[in-house]
């Protein structure tokens, strides 16, 4: 088969919505784009454990603590499903970690913001996981088989995350004046960064067309962002909290909420590494990896020892 007909066969699989699996021929760029997208998605899950892990020891009740522990464990699991999917494309786990630890790979910039109060945990579950769900549900039908299957598993687990966050916000917003103010403050700080999670505006997103063609992306950044604004504004009414954006207004003609301008300078600045916690996040990951080397070595040494003992006994 010539390269030309491999391409035709690949294109016809994409057009017929048939999954591409690890051993199928695929264009180099498809492979590279997927490795980048899936590994960065995985990194986001692992880094995302840090801002939430910050409040495990200070959760206000045993129930809240157990629930937050379960959520953070899930995020570790999500990282794993995604690293697994990326590894099927020919990159090793160590390589991906190296890219993360040296700053070569990116992760979702939302996790470069600090969790200042308990209410931040509620805001993250409600808004950040909410935005993630909106992104991830369409990915359950993405063209690359292992990625789609990982997303199905992730989505099943993600819905408790959002409910957990909303429940926290509900309790706080219906609580004392101090609690209500704390919830409003967290909402105010996490709202805009959550909108930025959907990425730059479509006009400034050069890869979107290719990603849509290959079914790696099923909806554009702006489409998903608009949906998130519409859905979340309604949810905020139940909480009785003020929308952090004074320009949010229902537009009858469009059938959507209009909203104010996003500060894209802040977005690019955080992406470039100048957010409040970028340095802290990478330091935490590097520390955990380097200080855990002895554990990885010990496990291998112990496994080898057990194997030799079994061989001798046989």
């Amino acid at each position: 088969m010539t390269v030309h007909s491999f391409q035709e066969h690949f294109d016809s699989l994409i057009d017929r919505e048939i999954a591409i699996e690890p051993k199928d021929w695929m264009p180099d760029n498809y492979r590279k784009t997927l490795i980048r997208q899936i590994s960065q998605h995985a990194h986001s899950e692992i880094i995302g454990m840090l801002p939430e892990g910050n409040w495990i020891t200070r959760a206000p009740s045993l129930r809240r603590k157990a629930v937050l522990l379960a959520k953070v464990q899930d995020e570790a699991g999500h990282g794993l499903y995604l690293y697994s999917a990326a590894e099927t494309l020919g990159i090793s786990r160590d390589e991906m970690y190296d890219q993360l630890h040296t700053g070569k790979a990116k992760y979702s910039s939302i996790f470069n913001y600090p969790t200042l109060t308990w209410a931040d945990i509620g805001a993250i579950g409600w808004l950040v996981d909410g935005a993630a769900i909106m992104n991830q549900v369409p990915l359950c039908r993405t063209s690359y088989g292992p990625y789609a299957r990982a997303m199905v598993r992730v989505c099943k687990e993600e819905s408790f995350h959002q409910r957990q966050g909303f429940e926290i916000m509900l309790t706080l917003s219906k609580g004392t004046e101090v609690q209500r103010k704390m919830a409003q403050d967290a909402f105010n700080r996490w709202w805009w960064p959550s909108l930025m999670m959907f990425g730059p505006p479509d006009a400034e997103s050069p890869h979107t067309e290719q990603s849509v063609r290959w079914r790696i992306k099923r909806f554009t950044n702006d489409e998903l962002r608009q949906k998130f604004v519409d859905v979340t504004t309604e949810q905020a009414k139940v909480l009785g909290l003020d929308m952090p954006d004074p320009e949010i207004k229902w537009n009858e003609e469009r059938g959507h909420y209009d909203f104010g301008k996003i500060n894209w300078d802040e977005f690019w600045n955080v992406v470039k590494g100048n957010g409040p916690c970028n340095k802290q996040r990478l330091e935490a990951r590097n520390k955990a990896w380097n200080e855990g080397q002895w554990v990885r070595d010990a496990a291998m040494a112990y496994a080898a020892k057990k194997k030799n003992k079994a061989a001798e006994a046989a």
Partner: protein
Amino acid sequence: MSQQNKNEWPLWEVFIRSKAGLDHKHAGSLHAADAQMAIENARDVYTRRMEGVSIWVVESKYIRASDPGEAASLYEPATDKIYRHPTFYDLPDEVKYM
């Protein structure tokens, strides 16, 4: 400063039987130092919601897979043997339970 490929744990494929009577299904992969750790890790990451009653782990290097490029010739014998399907056979209406 990070360390690369120093004793990277081998990769294992994980198969889970969700309940008695069903097959083990491929759930994903993970890294572990040996089979026991692989099973325990699989329990931690693939059965947090009681999704499994049985776990199989196999080192990924032992999985042998067919080549999709060879699919046409590999499966060719099956393509023209419709007599393997029950619908190929015409029976009189009076025949019951067949």
